[in-house]
Protein backbone atom coordinates (compact mmCIF):
# COMPACT_ATOMS: atom_id res chain seq x y z
CA UNK A 1 0.00 0.00 0.00
CA UNK A 2 2.83 2.33 0.83
CA UNK A 3 4.17 1.54 -2.59
CA UNK A 4 0.91 2.48 -4.26
CA UNK A 5 0.80 5.66 -2.30
CA UNK A 6 4.24 6.57 -3.52
CA UNK A 7 3.50 5.79 -7.12
CA UNK A 8 0.37 7.95 -7.02
CA UNK A 9 2.53 10.71 -5.63
CA UNK A 10 5.23 10.20 -8.24
CA UNK A 11 2.70 10.22 -11.08
CA UNK A 12 1.04 13.41 -9.84
CA UNK A 13 4.35 15.17 -9.43
CA UNK A 14 5.41 14.07 -12.90
CA UNK A 15 2.24 15.40 -14.49
CA UNK A 16 2.43 18.66 -12.61
CA UNK A 17 6.13 19.27 -13.22
CA UNK A 18 5.49 18.50 -16.87
CA UNK A 19 3.09 21.45 -16.82
CA UNK A 20 5.71 23.56 -15.09
CA UNK A 21 8.43 23.09 -17.65
CA UNK A 22 6.03 23.55 -20.53
CA UNK A 23 4.95 27.00 -19.51
CA UNK A 24 7.51 29.24 -17.92
CA UNK A 25 6.87 32.07 -20.29
CA UNK A 26 5.83 34.94 -18.06
CA UNK A 27 8.06 37.97 -17.65
CA UNK A 28 8.94 39.56 -14.32
CA UNK A 29 7.02 42.69 -15.30
CA UNK A 30 3.87 40.73 -16.06
CA UNK A 31 4.06 39.02 -12.71
CA UNK A 32 4.69 42.25 -10.87
CA UNK A 33 1.60 43.80 -12.44
CA UNK A 34 -0.47 41.05 -10.84
CA UNK A 35 -0.83 39.22 -14.10
CA UNK A 36 -1.32 35.51 -14.18
CA UNK A 37 -0.89 32.63 -16.54
CA UNK A 38 -4.12 30.70 -16.70
CA UNK A 39 -4.33 28.68 -19.92
CA UNK A 40 -6.66 26.10 -18.30
CA UNK A 41 -9.13 28.72 -17.12
CA UNK A 42 -12.27 26.97 -18.44
CA UNK A 43 -11.38 23.74 -16.58
CA UNK A 44 -10.30 25.69 -13.51
CA UNK A 45 -13.61 27.50 -13.45
CA UNK A 46 -15.47 24.18 -13.48
CA UNK A 47 -13.42 22.93 -10.54
CA UNK A 48 -14.04 26.24 -8.80
CA UNK A 49 -17.78 25.81 -9.24
CA UNK A 50 -17.48 22.30 -7.78
CA UNK A 51 -15.49 23.63 -4.82
CA UNK A 52 -18.15 26.26 -4.20
CA UNK A 53 -20.91 23.66 -4.14
CA UNK A 54 -18.84 21.57 -1.74
CA UNK A 55 -18.17 24.58 0.46
CA UNK A 56 -21.80 25.63 0.60
CA UNK A 57 -23.14 22.13 1.27
CA UNK A 58 -20.53 20.74 3.65
CA UNK A 59 -17.42 22.71 4.48
CA UNK A 60 -19.01 26.06 5.36
CA UNK A 61 -21.78 24.71 7.60
CA UNK A 62 -19.39 22.26 9.28
CA UNK A 63 -16.87 25.03 9.90
CA UNK A 64 -19.29 27.61 11.23
CA UNK A 65 -20.75 24.86 13.43
CA UNK A 66 -17.28 23.92 14.61
CA UNK A 67 -16.28 27.43 15.71
CA UNK A 68 -19.84 28.17 16.86
CA UNK A 69 -20.32 25.23 19.20
CA UNK A 70 -16.82 24.32 20.31
CA UNK A 71 -15.43 26.81 22.83
CA UNK A 72 -12.76 29.09 21.41
CA UNK A 73 -9.90 27.85 23.65
CA UNK A 74 -10.44 24.29 22.42
CA UNK A 75 -10.52 25.37 18.76
CA UNK A 76 -7.28 27.32 19.32
CA UNK A 77 -5.76 24.35 21.10
CA UNK A 78 -6.59 21.97 18.26
CA UNK A 79 -5.13 24.46 15.78
CA UNK A 80 -1.91 24.52 17.83
CA UNK A 81 -1.96 20.72 17.75
CA UNK A 82 -2.23 20.65 13.95
CA UNK A 83 0.48 23.27 13.49
CA UNK A 84 2.78 21.34 15.82
CA UNK A 85 2.29 18.14 13.85
CA UNK A 86 3.31 19.98 10.70
CA UNK A 87 6.60 21.15 12.26
CA UNK A 88 8.76 18.15 11.23
CA UNK A 89 7.77 18.81 7.61
CA UNK A 90 8.53 22.52 8.04
CA UNK A 91 11.98 21.66 9.40
CA UNK A 92 12.72 19.37 6.45
CA UNK A 93 11.62 22.02 3.95
CA UNK A 94 13.59 24.75 5.70
CA UNK A 95 16.73 22.57 5.55
CA UNK A 96 16.10 21.89 1.85
CA UNK A 97 15.94 25.66 1.35
CA UNK A 98 19.17 26.19 3.28
CA UNK A 99 17.18 28.27 5.76
CA UNK A 100 18.71 26.93 8.96
CA UNK A 101 17.27 29.69 11.11
CA UNK A 102 13.69 28.63 10.32
CA UNK A 103 14.72 24.97 10.63
CA UNK A 104 16.13 25.64 14.11
CA UNK A 105 13.05 27.58 15.17
CA UNK A 106 10.80 24.82 13.86
CA UNK A 107 12.74 22.15 15.69
CA UNK A 108 12.78 24.13 18.94
CA UNK A 109 9.05 24.77 18.63
CA UNK A 110 8.32 21.09 17.98
CA UNK A 111 10.40 19.91 20.96
CA UNK A 112 9.02 22.51 23.37
CA UNK A 113 5.37 22.37 22.30
CA UNK A 114 5.32 18.56 22.17
CA UNK A 115 6.57 18.34 25.77
CA UNK A 116 5.87 21.49 27.78
CA UNK A 117 2.92 22.20 25.52
CA UNK A 118 1.29 18.81 26.18
CA UNK A 119 1.55 17.06 22.80
CA UNK A 120 1.29 20.38 21.00
CA UNK A 121 -2.11 21.37 22.39
CA UNK A 122 -0.58 24.53 23.83
CA UNK A 123 1.90 26.93 22.32
CA UNK A 124 4.47 27.83 25.00
CA UNK A 125 7.05 28.51 22.26
CA UNK A 126 5.30 31.77 21.43
CA UNK A 127 5.45 32.79 25.09
CA UNK A 128 9.18 32.03 24.98
CA UNK A 129 9.43 34.34 21.97
CA UNK A 130 10.58 31.68 19.55
CA UNK A 131 9.73 33.04 16.11
CA UNK A 132 7.05 31.24 14.14
CA UNK A 133 8.31 28.76 11.60
CA UNK A 134 6.20 28.27 8.51
CA UNK A 135 7.18 27.02 5.11
CA UNK A 136 6.21 24.34 2.63
CA UNK A 137 7.50 22.38 -0.31
CA UNK A 138 6.07 24.97 -2.70
CA UNK A 139 8.42 27.50 -1.14
CA UNK A 140 11.29 25.03 -1.43
CA UNK A 141 10.61 24.78 -5.16
CA UNK A 142 10.52 28.60 -5.33
CA UNK A 143 13.89 28.81 -3.58
CA UNK A 144 15.26 26.24 -6.01
CA UNK A 145 14.29 28.52 -8.86
CA UNK A 146 11.27 26.66 -10.21
CA UNK A 147 8.83 28.97 -12.00
CA UNK A 148 5.20 29.46 -10.97
CA UNK A 149 3.71 27.62 -13.92
CA UNK A 150 0.06 27.93 -14.93
CA UNK A 151 -2.77 28.41 -12.46
CA UNK A 152 -4.66 25.33 -11.33
CA UNK A 153 -7.79 25.13 -9.22
CA UNK A 154 -7.35 22.13 -6.95
CA UNK A 155 -10.49 20.23 -5.94
CA UNK A 156 -11.22 20.47 -2.18
CA UNK A 157 -8.56 23.15 -1.93
CA UNK A 158 -8.77 26.19 -4.16
CA UNK A 159 -6.51 28.15 -6.50
CA UNK A 160 -2.79 27.41 -6.68
CA UNK A 161 0.07 27.88 -9.04
CA UNK A 162 1.35 24.62 -10.52
CA UNK A 163 4.47 24.99 -8.41
CA UNK A 164 2.40 25.23 -5.24
CA UNK A 165 0.15 22.37 -6.35
CA UNK A 166 3.25 20.16 -6.59
CA UNK A 167 4.25 21.41 -3.16
CA UNK A 168 0.86 20.68 -1.63
CA UNK A 169 0.75 17.16 -3.06
CA UNK A 170 4.34 16.49 -1.97
CA UNK A 171 3.75 17.81 1.54
CA UNK A 172 0.59 15.79 1.88
CA UNK A 173 2.07 12.45 0.86
CA UNK A 174 5.50 12.74 2.35
CA UNK A 175 4.83 14.11 5.81
CA UNK A 176 5.20 11.10 8.11
CA UNK A 177 2.66 12.57 10.50
CA UNK A 178 0.06 13.61 8.00
CA UNK A 179 -1.15 10.82 5.83
CA UNK A 180 -1.40 7.06 5.86
CA UNK A 181 -4.33 5.29 4.24
CA UNK A 182 -3.63 1.91 5.87
CA UNK A 183 -3.25 2.77 9.52
CA UNK A 184 -6.07 5.13 10.40
CA UNK A 185 -4.42 6.15 13.65
CA UNK A 186 -1.59 7.64 11.59
CA UNK A 187 -4.05 9.95 9.89
CA UNK A 188 -4.32 12.10 12.99
CA UNK A 189 -2.24 14.79 11.31
CA UNK A 190 -4.64 14.86 8.39
CA UNK A 191 -7.69 15.22 10.64
CA UNK A 192 -5.92 17.86 12.68
CA UNK A 193 -5.08 19.93 9.61
CA UNK A 194 -8.67 19.54 8.45
CA UNK A 195 -9.81 20.97 11.79
CA UNK A 196 -7.29 23.77 11.39
CA UNK A 197 -8.75 24.65 8.01
CA UNK A 198 -12.27 24.47 9.44
CA UNK A 199 -11.25 26.88 12.19
CA UNK A 200 -9.96 29.30 9.55
CA UNK A 201 -13.08 28.88 7.42
CA UNK A 202 -15.27 29.48 10.47
CA UNK A 203 -13.34 32.36 11.98
CA UNK A 204 -13.04 34.26 8.71
CA UNK A 205 -16.44 33.25 7.48
CA UNK A 206 -17.56 36.76 6.52
CA UNK A 207 -14.45 37.52 4.52
CA UNK A 208 -14.44 34.20 2.69
CA UNK A 209 -18.18 34.45 2.02
CA UNK A 210 -17.70 37.90 0.53
CA UNK A 211 -15.12 36.54 -1.89
CA UNK A 212 -16.99 33.35 -2.81
CA UNK A 213 -20.62 34.45 -2.74
CA UNK A 214 -20.80 38.23 -2.94
CA UNK A 215 -18.35 39.08 -5.70
CA UNK A 216 -19.23 39.43 -9.36
CA UNK A 217 -16.64 36.82 -10.35
CA UNK A 218 -15.54 34.69 -7.41
CA UNK A 219 -13.04 32.75 -9.50
CA UNK A 220 -11.24 35.91 -10.63
CA UNK A 221 -11.29 37.34 -7.07
CA UNK A 222 -9.98 34.16 -5.43
CA UNK A 223 -7.29 33.86 -8.10
CA UNK A 224 -5.94 37.39 -7.77
CA UNK A 225 -6.07 37.43 -3.98
CA UNK A 226 -4.34 34.05 -3.70
CA UNK A 227 -1.67 34.98 -6.22
CA UNK A 228 -0.79 38.36 -4.69
CA UNK A 229 -0.70 36.94 -1.19
CA UNK A 230 1.42 33.97 -2.18
CA UNK A 231 3.90 36.11 -4.11
CA UNK A 232 4.15 38.40 -1.10
CA UNK A 233 4.77 35.42 1.19
CA UNK A 234 7.49 34.04 -1.04
CA UNK A 235 9.24 37.19 -2.17
CA UNK A 236 8.88 39.04 1.10
CA UNK A 237 9.42 42.77 1.01
CA UNK A 238 10.65 44.79 -1.91
CA UNK A 239 11.80 41.83 -3.95
CA UNK A 240 10.45 40.89 -7.36
CA UNK A 241 6.75 40.55 -7.49
CA UNK A 242 6.08 43.17 -4.85
CA UNK A 243 8.07 46.31 -5.52
CA UNK A 244 6.56 46.98 -8.90
CA UNK A 245 3.07 46.49 -7.59
CA UNK A 246 3.44 50.06 -6.37
CA UNK A 247 2.46 51.28 -9.77
CA UNK A 248 1.32 54.84 -9.69
CA UNK A 249 -2.40 55.45 -10.11
CA UNK A 250 -1.62 59.16 -10.46
CA UNK A 251 0.38 58.37 -13.59
CA UNK A 252 -2.40 56.23 -14.97
CA UNK A 253 -2.75 56.59 -18.69
CA UNK A 254 -6.52 56.78 -18.49
CA UNK A 255 -6.59 60.43 -17.50
CA UNK A 256 -6.15 62.79 -14.64
CA UNK A 257 -9.11 63.39 -12.31
CA UNK A 258 -7.54 66.65 -11.25
CA UNK A 259 -7.45 68.01 -14.80
CA UNK A 260 -10.68 69.96 -14.38
Amino acid at each position, binding site marked *: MRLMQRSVFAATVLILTGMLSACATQSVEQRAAGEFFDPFEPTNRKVHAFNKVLDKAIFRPASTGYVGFIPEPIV*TSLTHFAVNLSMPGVVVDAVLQGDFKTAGNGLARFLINSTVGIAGLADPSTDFNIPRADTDFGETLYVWGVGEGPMVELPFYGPATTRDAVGIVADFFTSPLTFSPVRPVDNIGFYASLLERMADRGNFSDTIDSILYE*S*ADSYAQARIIYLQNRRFELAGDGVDGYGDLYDD*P*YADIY*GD*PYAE
Partner: protein
Amino acid sequence: MVTCTTTLMPIYMVTLMPSNFKFRRLLLTSAMVAPLVASLPSLAFAALTKATASELVNRLVGDINKVIASGKSEPAMVRDFEKLFIKYADVPIMARYALGVDGRRASKGQMRSFTKAFQGYISSKYGRRFREFIGGSLEVKSTRKIKTGFEVKSIALLKGQAPFEVTFLVSDKSGKGKFYNMFIEGVNMLLTERTEIGAMLDRRGGNIDKMIADLKKIA
Protein backbone atom coordinates in the same frame (compact mmCIF):
# COMPACT_ATOMS: atom_id res chain seq x y z
CA MET B 1 17.47 119.41 -16.44
CA VAL B 2 21.04 118.33 -16.69
CA THR B 3 21.24 117.07 -13.15
CA CYS B 4 18.06 115.26 -13.71
CA THR B 5 19.34 113.33 -16.71
CA THR B 6 22.58 112.55 -14.97
CA THR B 7 20.84 111.02 -12.04
CA LEU B 8 18.50 109.14 -14.28
CA MET B 9 21.22 108.18 -16.71
CA PRO B 10 22.92 105.45 -14.70
CA ILE B 11 19.66 103.66 -14.13
CA TYR B 12 18.78 103.90 -17.80
CA MET B 13 22.25 102.67 -18.65
CA VAL B 14 21.96 99.78 -16.30
CA THR B 15 18.75 98.61 -17.84
CA LEU B 16 20.37 98.71 -21.28
CA MET B 17 23.51 96.96 -20.27
CA PRO B 18 23.90 93.26 -21.07
CA SER B 19 23.73 92.48 -17.41
CA ASN B 20 20.26 93.98 -17.29
CA PHE B 21 18.77 90.54 -17.70
CA LYS B 22 20.36 89.46 -14.50
CA PHE B 23 19.02 92.54 -12.77
CA ARG B 24 15.51 92.15 -14.08
CA ARG B 25 15.47 88.50 -13.31
CA LEU B 26 16.49 89.30 -9.79
CA LEU B 27 13.69 91.84 -9.48
CA LEU B 28 11.22 89.45 -10.99
CA THR B 29 12.16 86.56 -8.82
CA SER B 30 12.16 88.58 -5.64
CA ALA B 31 8.76 89.94 -6.58
CA MET B 32 7.51 86.40 -7.03
CA VAL B 33 9.30 84.94 -4.08
CA ALA B 34 8.05 87.54 -1.59
CA PRO B 35 4.51 86.20 -1.31
CA LEU B 36 5.87 82.66 -1.42
CA VAL B 37 8.13 83.36 1.53
CA ALA B 38 5.21 84.84 3.39
CA SER B 39 3.22 81.68 2.83
CA LEU B 40 6.10 79.32 3.55
CA PRO B 41 4.99 78.24 7.02
CA SER B 42 1.62 77.04 5.70
CA LEU B 43 3.30 75.31 2.75
CA ALA B 44 5.69 73.48 5.00
CA PHE B 45 2.75 72.34 7.04
CA ALA B 46 0.83 71.04 4.03
CA ALA B 47 3.71 69.20 2.34
CA LEU B 48 3.83 65.53 3.15
CA THR B 49 6.83 64.32 5.10
CA LYS B 50 7.75 60.96 6.56
CA ALA B 51 6.39 62.11 9.89
CA THR B 52 3.10 63.54 8.61
CA ALA B 53 2.51 60.47 6.43
CA SER B 54 2.75 58.07 9.35
CA GLU B 55 0.81 60.48 11.52
CA LEU B 56 -1.98 60.41 8.95
CA VAL B 57 -2.18 56.62 9.20
CA ASN B 58 -2.10 56.80 12.99
CA ARG B 59 -4.97 59.28 13.02
CA LEU B 60 -6.92 57.12 10.54
CA VAL B 61 -6.43 54.03 12.72
CA GLY B 62 -7.43 56.00 15.82
CA ASP B 63 -10.61 57.22 14.13
CA ILE B 64 -11.49 53.73 12.89
CA ASN B 65 -11.03 52.34 16.40
CA LYS B 66 -13.32 55.05 17.76
CA VAL B 67 -16.06 54.06 15.33
CA ILE B 68 -15.65 50.37 16.21
CA ALA B 69 -15.78 51.17 19.93
CA SER B 70 -18.86 53.38 19.52
CA GLY B 71 -21.07 50.30 19.55
CA LYS B 72 -23.38 51.80 16.92
CA SER B 73 -25.48 49.68 14.56
CA GLU B 74 -23.76 48.32 11.49
CA PRO B 75 -25.41 50.75 9.01
CA ALA B 76 -24.49 53.69 11.26
CA MET B 77 -20.91 52.45 11.47
CA VAL B 78 -20.73 52.08 7.70
CA ARG B 79 -21.88 55.71 7.35
CA ASP B 80 -19.12 56.76 9.75
CA PHE B 81 -16.57 54.74 7.82
CA GLU B 82 -17.65 56.48 4.63
CA LYS B 83 -16.92 59.86 6.25
CA LEU B 84 -13.48 58.61 7.31
CA PHE B 85 -12.86 57.25 3.83
CA ILE B 86 -13.59 60.66 2.28
CA LYS B 87 -11.46 62.40 4.88
CA TYR B 88 -8.41 60.16 4.69
CA ALA B 89 -8.44 58.63 1.21
CA ASP B 90 -7.99 60.12 -2.22
CA VAL B 91 -11.30 58.70 -3.43
CA PRO B 92 -11.34 60.20 -6.98
CA ILE B 93 -8.00 58.67 -7.95
CA MET B 94 -8.92 55.32 -6.39
CA ALA B 95 -12.24 55.22 -8.22
CA ARG B 96 -10.60 56.08 -11.52
CA TYR B 97 -7.97 53.39 -11.06
CA ALA B 98 -10.62 50.81 -10.16
CA LEU B 99 -12.59 51.63 -13.31
CA GLY B 100 -9.41 51.10 -15.35
CA VAL B 101 -9.58 51.15 -19.13
CA ASP B 102 -13.34 51.63 -19.06
CA GLY B 103 -12.77 55.01 -17.43
CA ARG B 104 -11.71 56.28 -20.85
CA ARG B 105 -15.19 55.95 -22.32
CA ALA B 106 -16.98 57.18 -19.21
CA SER B 107 -18.47 60.68 -19.40
CA LYS B 108 -17.72 63.24 -16.69
CA GLY B 109 -21.16 62.70 -15.22
CA GLN B 110 -20.71 58.92 -15.19
CA MET B 111 -17.30 59.35 -13.57
CA ARG B 112 -18.82 61.53 -10.86
CA SER B 113 -21.62 59.12 -10.04
CA PHE B 114 -19.25 56.15 -10.21
CA THR B 115 -16.90 57.83 -7.72
CA LYS B 116 -19.82 58.38 -5.36
CA ALA B 117 -21.05 54.78 -5.73
CA PHE B 118 -17.52 53.41 -5.34
CA GLN B 119 -17.06 55.37 -2.14
CA GLY B 120 -20.20 53.83 -0.63
CA TYR B 121 -19.31 50.36 -1.86
CA ILE B 122 -15.79 50.43 -0.39
CA SER B 123 -17.00 51.84 2.92
CA SER B 124 -19.58 49.14 3.35
CA LYS B 125 -17.42 46.26 2.07
CA TYR B 126 -14.37 47.08 4.16
CA GLY B 127 -16.31 48.60 7.03
CA ARG B 128 -18.09 45.31 7.64
CA ARG B 129 -14.67 43.59 7.69
CA PHE B 130 -13.48 45.91 10.45
CA ARG B 131 -15.65 43.99 12.89
CA GLU B 132 -12.91 41.38 12.83
CA PHE B 133 -10.61 44.07 14.20
CA ILE B 134 -12.52 44.43 17.46
CA GLY B 135 -10.00 44.22 20.29
CA GLY B 136 -7.11 44.32 17.85
CA SER B 137 -4.62 47.03 17.09
CA LEU B 138 -2.64 48.41 14.20
CA GLU B 139 0.88 49.67 14.86
CA VAL B 140 2.84 51.78 12.41
CA LYS B 141 6.24 50.14 12.02
CA SER B 142 8.10 52.03 9.34
CA THR B 143 7.73 54.72 6.70
CA ARG B 144 9.75 55.19 3.56
CA LYS B 145 9.71 57.47 0.54
CA ILE B 146 8.36 56.03 -2.69
CA LYS B 147 7.87 57.68 -6.07
CA THR B 148 4.36 58.98 -5.45
CA GLY B 149 4.72 59.75 -1.76
CA PHE B 150 5.24 57.52 1.21
CA GLU B 151 4.77 53.89 2.11
CA VAL B 152 3.58 53.42 5.68
CA LYS B 153 3.93 49.86 6.94
CA SER B 154 1.96 48.68 9.90
CA ILE B 155 1.41 45.43 11.72
CA ALA B 156 -2.09 44.31 12.62
CA LEU B 157 -2.35 42.39 15.86
CA LEU B 158 -5.57 40.47 16.22
CA LYS B 159 -6.52 38.22 19.07
CA GLY B 160 -5.42 34.60 18.57
CA GLN B 161 -3.90 35.26 15.16
CA ALA B 162 -0.46 35.59 13.68
CA PRO B 163 0.37 39.28 13.18
CA PHE B 164 -0.06 40.43 9.61
CA GLU B 165 1.16 43.34 7.56
CA VAL B 166 -1.02 46.23 6.42
CA THR B 167 0.65 48.82 4.20
CA PHE B 168 -0.76 52.22 3.26
CA LEU B 169 0.46 54.31 0.35
CA VAL B 170 0.11 58.01 1.07
CA SER B 171 0.45 60.90 -1.36
CA ASP B 172 -0.30 64.63 -1.43
CA LYS B 173 -0.84 64.79 -5.17
CA SER B 174 -4.50 65.61 -4.56
CA GLY B 175 -3.39 68.75 -2.73
CA LYS B 176 -3.69 67.12 0.67
CA GLY B 177 -1.96 64.17 2.30
CA LYS B 178 -4.24 61.18 1.69
CA PHE B 179 -3.87 57.44 1.31
CA TYR B 180 -4.55 56.05 -2.15
CA ASN B 181 -3.89 52.34 -1.80
CA MET B 182 -3.65 49.65 0.83
CA PHE B 183 -1.95 46.24 0.88
CA ILE B 184 -3.05 43.53 3.29
CA GLU B 185 -0.43 40.79 3.37
CA GLY B 186 0.58 41.73 -0.13
CA VAL B 187 -2.96 41.92 -1.51
CA ASN B 188 -3.31 45.18 -3.40
CA MET B 189 -6.72 46.67 -2.69
CA LEU B 190 -6.91 48.79 -5.86
CA LEU B 191 -5.84 45.93 -8.12
CA THR B 192 -8.34 43.58 -6.49
CA GLU B 193 -11.14 46.13 -6.82
CA ARG B 194 -10.23 46.80 -10.45
CA THR B 195 -10.71 43.07 -11.08
CA GLU B 196 -14.07 43.14 -9.32
CA ILE B 197 -15.37 46.27 -11.05
CA GLY B 198 -14.18 44.83 -14.37
CA ALA B 199 -16.12 41.62 -13.69
CA MET B 200 -19.23 43.61 -12.78
CA LEU B 201 -18.99 45.50 -16.06
CA ASP B 202 -18.50 42.29 -18.06
CA ARG B 203 -21.60 40.83 -16.46
CA ARG B 204 -23.61 43.84 -17.59
CA GLY B 205 -22.33 43.83 -21.14
CA GLY B 206 -20.03 46.75 -20.42
CA ASN B 207 -22.92 49.04 -19.45
CA ILE B 208 -21.40 51.60 -17.07
CA ASP B 209 -24.72 53.05 -15.89
CA LYS B 210 -26.10 49.62 -14.99
CA MET B 211 -22.90 48.80 -13.12
CA ILE B 212 -23.09 52.07 -11.15
CA ALA B 213 -26.73 51.42 -10.27
CA ASP B 214 -25.89 47.92 -9.00
CA LEU B 215 -22.83 49.16 -7.12
CA LYS B 216 -25.12 51.56 -5.26
CA LYS B 217 -27.35 48.63 -4.30
CA ILE B 218 -24.42 46.68 -2.85
CA ALA B 219 -23.39 49.69 -0.79
